[in-house]
């Protein structure tokens, strides 16, 4: 009897459980599954993007937590005002409360809310990327239908500083230009994920059986850029572009021994925190190729010295004009028949003298030397969007090419390539591949340097020294760029003034009457530490000679670099080379 009643009891319990099961799984499964899903969340844990640092570890670009403030128009539509309510309770009063905090106009926000309520929209961003503290103030108002979501934002404490190098990230935080694009894999890290269950208050239930993968933060990228030098160079270039009404300007400072780029300043620039208009992806230092003009004479000189065609003291007769394949060649200044030494040809930047030497040299050897110095190939800097420039093969040379290419016309190069040529001369004839990334830093701050830059000998150290000596006379009173001098230091360099081919507009692909004005030099000339290249594009409105518009900038930027790095003044006098014979 007892056994039977026990069985009946058991049966009733089983029946109860079964009917509950049917109720849960059979009658309203969707509703309960929904509740379950709401309580269980698959959360992506975004990996913090690495920073971009300057060579001293100062952040140039970093990610911070920011908040987006959104509105839920449907929720706001449901909110009703009680009689005598003081707290915001309808679209108008909510807008009035939230707009001033977000720096928006009350009318605009109210209008937005009204329009979205009318359209029965569920969601609307009011403001993206605001400071968390500010978001906290908004949330503390307890407004119905106003919420916040966490996001990360890329900020640049120095604003436009090195913007062309850094590039920018898109709305998803993915690098789209510059270092942000080139180092995307390193900077991005790896997102983590977690499955968590929450209680009604939104707290994680500790015994929920979570699966959890930690995010791996992105590594930081340390650049070779010196923030202070970069800022100074950027200021000066921007000023000079404005003062000469040039189209754009670039200044590159490079360490001679390591090939590290200490500053890569371009103007016009942009503020990556506030991109609204303009062409942001361009970094003219690497994407703009131009005819280098006279700065290419150094390569002609290196080839001629290497092949023993001339020595710095070889006398070259320079007529007022010179005809090559029907093309009449002039020098920048009108002169009679001159007897210049080869050093004088370089110092006075004589086109005719250079072409006469180049004719003896021939196309093949000049082409080989240009390629050897790195022209016609990407510099190896590693920034996206670099143009390799164009160096025509000797087979493609026309009859007048030998009158153009030795003096830097009919070829195109970028500013980094040119700086690298002079860094090679400064480094005793050994070309060190330019670099702008020093290494990556993990979260513990440990630096993993990039592999050592590739090196190759281009000319002998003796020839490099001869060229340096000749380039020192350029900066003398007899040369083309006395304004490039830096008090206390010996300076060697070369001016460049070339007609410019328009890169856009109706004159695209043709000489548009403007100029490329440049000065590239090294200091101290007796033991070079740095090379600085200053290139102004589209000059002509207010001065265009490289020795006039670019050389003073060189003097200031190089002077700043020498002082910053505590380079001891030369203490010796430059060699006095004979530039001309009577």
């Amino acid at each position, binding site marked *: 009897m007892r056994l039977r009643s026990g069985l009946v009891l058991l049966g009733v319990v089983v029946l109860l459980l079964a009917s509950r099961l049917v109720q849960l799984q059979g009658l309203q499964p969707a509703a309960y599954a929904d509740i379950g899903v709401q309580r269980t969340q698959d959360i992506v844990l975004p990996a913090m993007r690495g920073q971009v640092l300057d060579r*001293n570890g*100062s*952040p140039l670009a970093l990610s*911070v*937590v920011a908040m987006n403030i959104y509105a839920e128009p449907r929720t706001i539509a449901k909110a009703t005002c009680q009689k005598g309510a003081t707290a915001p309770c309808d679209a108008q009063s909510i807008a009035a409360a939230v707009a001033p905090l*977000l*720096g928006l106009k009350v009318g605009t926000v109210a209008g937005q809310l009204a329009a979205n309520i009318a359209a029965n929209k569920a969601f609307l961003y009011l*403001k993206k*990327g*605001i*400071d*968390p*503290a*500010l978001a*906290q103030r908004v949330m503390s108002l307890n407004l119905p239908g106003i919420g916040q979501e966490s996001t990360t934002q890329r*900020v640049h*404490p*120095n*604003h*436009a*500083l090195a913007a062309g190098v850094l590039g920018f990230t898109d709305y998803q935080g993915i690098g789209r230009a510059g270092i942000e694009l080139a180092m995307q894999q390193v900077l991005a890290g790896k997102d983590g994920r977690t499955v968590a269950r929450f209680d009604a208050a939104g*707290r*994680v*239930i*500790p*015994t929920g059986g979570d699966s959890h993968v930690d995010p791996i933060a992105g590594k930081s990228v340390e650049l070779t850029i*010196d*923030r*202070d030098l970069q*800022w*100074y160079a*950027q*200021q000066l270039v*921007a*000023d000079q572009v*404005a*003062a000469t009404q040039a189209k754009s300007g670039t200044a590159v400072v490079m360490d001679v021994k390591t090939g590290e780029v200490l500053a890569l300043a371009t*103007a*016009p*620039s*942009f*503020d990556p*925190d*506030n991109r609204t208009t303009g062409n942001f992806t361009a970094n003219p230092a690497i994407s703009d190729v131009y005819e280098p003009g006279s700065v290419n004479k150094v390569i002609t000189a290196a080839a001629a010295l290497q092949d023993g065609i001339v020595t710095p003291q070889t006398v070259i007769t320079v007529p007022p004009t010179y005809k090559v394949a029907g093309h009449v060649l002039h020098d920048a200044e009108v002169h009679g028949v001159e007897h210049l030494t080869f050093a004088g040809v370089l110092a006075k930047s004589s086109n005719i003298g250079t072409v006469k030497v180049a004719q003896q040299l021939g196309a093949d050897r000049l082409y080989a030397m240009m390629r050897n110095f790195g022209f016609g190939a990407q510099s190896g800097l590693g920034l996206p969007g670099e143009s390799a420039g164009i160096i025509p093969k000797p087979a493609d040379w026309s009859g007048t090419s030998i009158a153009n290419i030795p003096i830097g016309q009919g070829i195109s190069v970028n500013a980094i390539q040119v700086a690298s040529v002079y860094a090679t001369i400064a480094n005793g004839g050994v070309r060190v591949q330019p670099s702008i990334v020093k290494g990556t830093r993990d979260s513990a701050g440990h630096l993993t340097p990039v592999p050592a830059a590739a090196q190759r000998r281009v000319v002998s150290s003796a020839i490099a020294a001869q060229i340096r000596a000749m380039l020192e006379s350029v900066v003398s009173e007899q040369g083309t760029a006395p304004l490039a001098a*830096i*008090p*206390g230091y010996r300076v060697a360099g070369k001016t460049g003034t070339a007609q410019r081919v328009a890169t856009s507009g109706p004159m695209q692909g043709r000489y548009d009457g403007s100029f490329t004005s440049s000065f590239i030099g090294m200091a101290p000339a007796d033991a070079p530490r740095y090379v600085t290249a200053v290139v102004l594009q589209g000059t002509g409105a207010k001065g265009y000679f490289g020795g006039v518009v670019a050389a003073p900038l060189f003097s200031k930027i190089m*002077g*700043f670099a020498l*002082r*910053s*790095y*505590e380079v*001891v*003044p030369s*203490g010796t006098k430059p060699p006095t080379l004979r530039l001309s014979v009577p």
Partner: protein
Amino acid sequence: MSAMTNGSAARTLSLPLRSPLPTPVPKRSSSLRLVPQRRSSAARAPFLVVVVTLLVGGLLGLLLLNTLVAQDSFTLHDLGKQATSLSRQEQELARQVQALQAPAALASRATALGMVPGGPPAFLRLSDGKVLGQPTAGVAPVAPVTRPSVTPSTTPSTKPATTGPHGSTTWTAPRQSPPPAATNTRTTTQTGTHR
């Protein structure tokens, strides 16, 4: 063919094995009798107590454990919120410091204080006491040109309030008289911008 024959053989074989019906068991109820139960209530009480204690203790223990875990979870939640708040505060302060450290901010502040960029420094060589270089006093740059490119232009909400007047980072002539001329034996740079 062979399988069929095997199967039929098995069937025929199995029949005699299954065929015997269970022979009726003779009723022997009269001979089996329940053994009288031994009532030993004295031994039962402690056992019950132990079981109930274990049950109640286990339940209470579980409850306690769960409560503790939940309690810790609440604490964790609260502390997590506090940590988030503090890290945001730290982030905000770090941003302010970075903004103040920016070369543009330093330069404008220095200019406002009447400082000018340094001139060429001199170096004192310790080995022979020789002064290298010609020290000159810094002069204020003329030509105040506006620098739109490096002048920050963030929205007011994201810009820390303490970064100062960003819109006016032009070199202006110092308000005060220039600092005294540099001495002859400086061994460090005057700019003070390189660390």
